[in-house]
């Protein structure tokens, strides 16, 4: 498995479920297609002759640019999902993500304040869940999306147990 430059060496990353791509696709569709369709409205109005202000090139260009960006994001989704990884080390949980803007994060078990498991409608249909770790810092944005429900539950119990064992104050 290929690891990126900023990943600590010798880590075996656990990958999230490939089914998470579907979740991202649905999110993408809701977010981007709606935007593109809305941006297409002026084009329709201009073509029907109801509006005069946006010149035709602008009315075409705006949704076109959005569409290209949306397709670019669509193409990236499978790679982004493959880039998400986590690894349980002895004292902390490593979480990585991102292709262009990469992030590798270490959350010590003793610093966890609580663990959230969230399930959205699409995730529920696919049997996935999202695990979120909270420390005393609002900057800790530690989220592992697209975990199979069983793995999510196991990880939650595991994290709680390890947090208990290594509990530290603030």
């Amino acid at each position, binding site marked *: 498995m290929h690891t990126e*430059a*900023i990943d600590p060496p010798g880590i075996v990353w656990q990958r999230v479920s490939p089914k998470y791509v579907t979740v991202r696709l649905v999110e993408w569709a809701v977010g981007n297609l709606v935007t593109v369709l809305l941006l297409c409205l002026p084009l329709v109005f201009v073509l029907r002759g109801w509006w005069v202000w946006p010149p035709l090139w602008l009315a075409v260009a705006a949704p076109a640019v959005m569409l290209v960006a949306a397709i670019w994001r669509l193409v990236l989704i499978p790679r982004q999902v493959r880039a998400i990884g986590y690894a349980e080390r002895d004292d902390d949980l490593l979480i990585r993500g991102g292709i262009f*803007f990469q*992030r590798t994060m*270490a959350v010590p078990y003793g*610093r966890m304040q609580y663990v959230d498991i969230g399930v959205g409608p699409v995730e529920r249909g696919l049997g996935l869940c999202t695990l979120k770790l909270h420390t*005393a810092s*609002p900057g800790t944005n530690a989220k592992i999306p697209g975990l199979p429900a069983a793995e999510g539950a196991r990880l939650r119990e595991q994290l709680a147990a390890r947090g208990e064992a*290594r509990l530290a104050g*603030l």
Partner: protein
Amino acid sequence: MTAEGRFPEPGAPAGQPVRGTEPLPGPEPLRGAGPRSGTGPFPGPGPGPAPAVGSTASDGEWLRVHPASPFVRGWVALAAIAFFFGRDIFERSLQGRPVFQDELAGRAPFLLAGGGVVLLIAVLGFVLTWYFTKYQVSGGYVRVNTGLLFRQQRQARLDRVQAIDIVQPLLARIFGLAELKFEVADAGESAVRLAYLKIEDARQLRATILARAAGVTAGTGSPGEAVPEAPEFPVLAVPPSRLVGSLLLSEQSFFVALGAVVSVVLSVLTESSAFYLYLIPAALGLAASYWSLFNKGYNFTAAISPDGIRLRYGLLDTQAQTLPPGRIQALKITQPPLWRPFGWYRMQVNVAGYGLVDNAGEGTSRTTLLPVGRLDDVMSMLALVLPDPGSDHPADVFTAGLAGLDSDGGYVTTPRRARFLAPLGWRRNGFTATGTALLLRSGRWWRELVVVPHQRTQSMALQQGPLARRFGVADLVLHTTAGPVTPRLAQAGVDEALALFDQQSARARLARKRQTTEQWLRQVAPPLAEAVEAPQPVVEPPETPPVVEPVETQTKEGPKHG
């Protein structure tokens, strides 16, 4: 045996683990003898003799805040009503008119009655709120019950205290009252807010809470006995002249001057005086802002006591903060370019209880550890925050962090290959780690040094964007609690960043293991035992607390910066 016996010396390193050892010797012999005798010889605005204020310290007793407090809190409303009616009557009597218009005179009784009823309801509300607000300190908890219709019972663990503030707004100060704020790591509102208590009671309550939180009095000791306040030793004070100078040379003033120049130039160019008009509201706003900063920063003094760092400041509204040991999550020392000729620095901290800056004025002043100070002031404050700097040459390391370039003081900077990403700052951006803290320095003009104690690191992240990858650098972000300090190591070489990521995890892990309890006196029990046995007079050690050592090394080097 005096009050000193209970507390370790201020500078005692907090790193001596006593895990698994027996707790402190019983509290009774320690607090029994002469509660005030230890603090007597020391200067400082200590409260009066303990017996007078013993009521607040009694254990398990439900107490109410001062009866006048609802009126002090609601004084704005009362003052507005009084002003409104008073002015009317005053003007009328000056003009020789009847106090009430004729057409109103007939209805006057009804109006008066209506007004009286409204006033009565308001006062009744005040009184009921006061009556149903009770607090209690017992068994390691502070409890507050409030509310008449919607009742609220709140209880907070004393050893979770992050900070205790005693605030005195001007009116409360006139009446000798004070508000006590008890902060826990919630980053939201204060966990416990008692407004208002008598100032002696507030101080006494603070002493009780801090002593219990420190682990001095285990269990529910003899009720009715006051816990003596911990002795404190002044460390530094900011003279008003320096405060005024720092305000005049602040970033804000720079933009004021810029705005003034621009508007004058525009006025001349357009030959219209309209631009001056825009300046009037701006000037008013600025005056208010300067006044607020001056009012908050006036008479700033810092002192150290075994309970932690004490900060006092304020001209009209005064505030006294107590930050118990180990509660500072991260620290930032900054120097704007205009302050450099004078060698001034500003220090800000993240404290879990203070949270984000909600109310701009209050938030910034509470998270300010030092509004403006010289290098030796900075060093002595650093010595308070980090009693054990974890380095053989702390002064060199910190001075290099404040003013150094390249590898001065052992800092690892941005590699030369990435100098195009930070053409000015690449020689400054750097980090170094001492045994107890990570130091991150940045900024060529706006100099900044961030200090994060290892045991306070929450989590960490390495980040790298496409451009940074092209230059082989990465950013390391340390996450701490909400506050003005956001520790970020920018543009470190990938190898160095990776190594630091690993080492920092290990250091934080070790430091966490060393810190076993939040009751800070229990962590440093061995020095306590020594202090108890030591036959030497207890007055001496605090006279030359080891804390001040770095200050003295600094004052020798001081002149070259000053």
